[in-house]
């Protein structure tokens, strides 16, 4: 390294605001792009990014990370892990790449928006690295996904999901666009880097890395934990922004931004990471339950960070904690029923041994969820094909785009949440999603879920095939049970004695 220490010159490189003369400050930093909080450039100059790194260090550290990740992949390429792994694990890889790769790219643009419109030079500089980081995440994950593309058409969704009208793609875009590009730089710094990156990415990128290491999928484990090291750095952009905002009397607005983004992220991450960790990972390789990961990274770590900054726990916190007991279970059951609409093959994950694990991790699981899987198994055993698919289209939430469901049967507590706005009624999965809509109704109104589109006749023909094709899914890439229903055939004795066994499990949702 060169002679001077970073501290000797670092502040000079972030002393780059000046008073413009040939264009106004408002023209260069319009509020709608820069700062919905309306702080001045001078107020933002107190911004002090805590995780400091220079360009020189950045390229050195990042090329080391890349050399490591790519060489582990190359070293293991001949081991043909993909051909030998359990089907459920392969499904996780397909789900991960399809849901994540292009989401990362929207963050490239989001970070660049902070690099352009952030009023604090320190934010602009750290976001410059952030944008590069997100390009790394897009590219390295696409590269790893592409390695096995000749083995499954479903891997095409690594590049495809977000370009389609698949319901999951719509839900992903809706969340990402709401918390990233649809926001000004200051709000985005909270929603993207604080709520999403400091909060939730740990679940997918470290939770799955832990399971992958146990699986022996070192290439994937190393990849996603390496990705997370970039997040740990640039996620700090939001911490410094929150300090400035709170110091300038904007706590209430900042609090609201955290609450909106936290909830929107939770709604997607439970449905993605939850089933992966609690059902799709082969039992012997599970490190912790999804709930345990949530408690490690969200409750113990993120909630504490919220408190430390002087913010409050989100108003729906008790409800959120309660949902860590069941969202992933209803989500998994639903994804399994909707498997034709997915680009991966969900595994049942409910063999007797797996049920014992679920019951241990989630006391009462058998009572709540096991009996529904019993019905499904019975239907499989009796060849009742029509009962293995949803009888009707699920109702989707007009904010998060996921289905409106809850705990089935006993303790069933799905409550109706809706808002009438304009000429129609908007339905929501939960009080927080309704709360988000009601904060800024014109922001979300008019958006059509896939179900709205079906009902409006936008999808032609409105048959199952027509709808699947509208969602970009053709035979050969539509999901099916990962284990060809083997779990249902062998797991249980036939249940001829159950008169209620013909009940449609999906109707219980």
């Amino acid at each position, binding site marked *: 390294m060169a002679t001077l220490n*970073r501290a000797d010159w670092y502040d000079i490189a972030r002393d780059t605001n000046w008073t413009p003369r040939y264009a106004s400050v408002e023209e260069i930093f319009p509020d709608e792009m820069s700062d919905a909080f309306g702080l001045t450039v001078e107020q933002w100059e107190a911004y002090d990014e805590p995780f400091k790194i220079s360009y020189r260090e950045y390229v050195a*550290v990042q090329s080391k*990370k890349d050399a490591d990740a790519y060489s582990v992949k190359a070293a293991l390429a001949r081991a043909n892990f993909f051909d030998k792994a359990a089907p459920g694990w392969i499904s996780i890889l397909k789900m991960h790449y399809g849901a994540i790769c292009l989401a990362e790219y929207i963050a490239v643009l989001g970070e660049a928006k902070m690099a352009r419109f952030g009023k604090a030079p320190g934010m602009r500089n750290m976001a410059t690295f952030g944008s590069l980081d997100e390009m790394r995440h897009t590219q390295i994950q696409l590269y790893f996904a592409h390695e096995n593309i000749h083995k499954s058409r479903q891997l095409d969704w690594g590049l495809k999901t977000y370009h389609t009208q698949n319901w999951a793609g719509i839900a992903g875009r809706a969340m990402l666009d709401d918390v990233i590009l649809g926001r000004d730089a200051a709000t985005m710094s909270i929603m993207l880097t604080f709520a999403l990156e400091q909060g939730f990415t740990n679940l997918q990128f*470290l939770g799955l890395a*832990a399971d992958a290491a146990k699986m022996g999928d070192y290439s994937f484990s190393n990849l996603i*934990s390496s990705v997370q090291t970039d997040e740990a750095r640039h996620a700090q952009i939001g911490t410094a922004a929150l300090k400035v905002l709170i110091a300038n009397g904007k706590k209430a607005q900042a609090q609201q931004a955290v609450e909106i983004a936290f909830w929107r992220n939770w709604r997607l991450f439970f449905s993605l990471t939850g089933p992966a960790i609690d059902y799709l990972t082969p039992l012997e390789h599970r*490190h*912790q339950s999804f709930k345990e990961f949530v408690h490690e990274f969200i409750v113990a770590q993120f909630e504490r*960070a919220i408190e*430390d900054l002087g913010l409050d726990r989100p108003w729906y916190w008790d409800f959120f904690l309660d949902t860590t007991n069941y969202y992933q279970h209803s989500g998994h059951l639903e994804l399994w029923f909707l498997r034709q609409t997915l680009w991966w093959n969900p595994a049942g994950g409910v063999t007797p041994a797996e049920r014992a694990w679920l019951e241990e991790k989630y006391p009462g699981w058998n009572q709540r969820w096991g009996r529904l899987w019993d019905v499904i198994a019975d239907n499989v055993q009796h060849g009742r094909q029509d009962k293995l698919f949803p009888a009707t289209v699920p109702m989707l939430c007009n904010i998060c785009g996921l289905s409106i469901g809850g705990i089935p049967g006993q303790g069933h507590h799905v409550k109706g949440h809706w808002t009438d706005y304009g000429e129609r009624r908007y339905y929501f999965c939960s009080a927080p999603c309704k709360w988000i809509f009601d904060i800024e109704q014109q922001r979300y109104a008019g958006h059509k879920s896939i179900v709205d589109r079906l009902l409006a006749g936008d999808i032609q023909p409105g048959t199952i095939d027509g709808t699947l094709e509208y969602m970009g899914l053709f035979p050969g890439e539509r999901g099916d049970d990962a284990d060809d229903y083997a779990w249902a055939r062998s797991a249980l004795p036939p249940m001829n004695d159950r008169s209620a066994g013909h009940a449609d499990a999906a109707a219980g949702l």
Partner: protein
Amino acid sequence: MHDQVAARTSGNDSKNMVGPVLKSGDIAEAAIAAVQDDNPAAALIVENHEAYVRIKAEGQCLIRQSTMEHHLGRPFEMAELETVLASFAGQIEATPEYMRFYFDKVF
């Protein structure tokens, strides 16, 4: 569940535990040793999650560049810790001489 690979505490997890989550490997091992040297008075817990280790120290967790070099037996720039720093609890201060995790508000 994870197991603890090192512990220097008699009580339960306190609300003030801070520290890094590191990708497993030689740098993480050196960091575990360095944390014990650099935080002699703090209660410590190290959890092994195979892909990663979580280091928790009460109140503050300091890792010095010189201590890392000592345990790695080679030159080490503090920025290199980022290659394995996947997450962390607490706030961070990152300088070429040390990395420090801490809370503003201690309970």
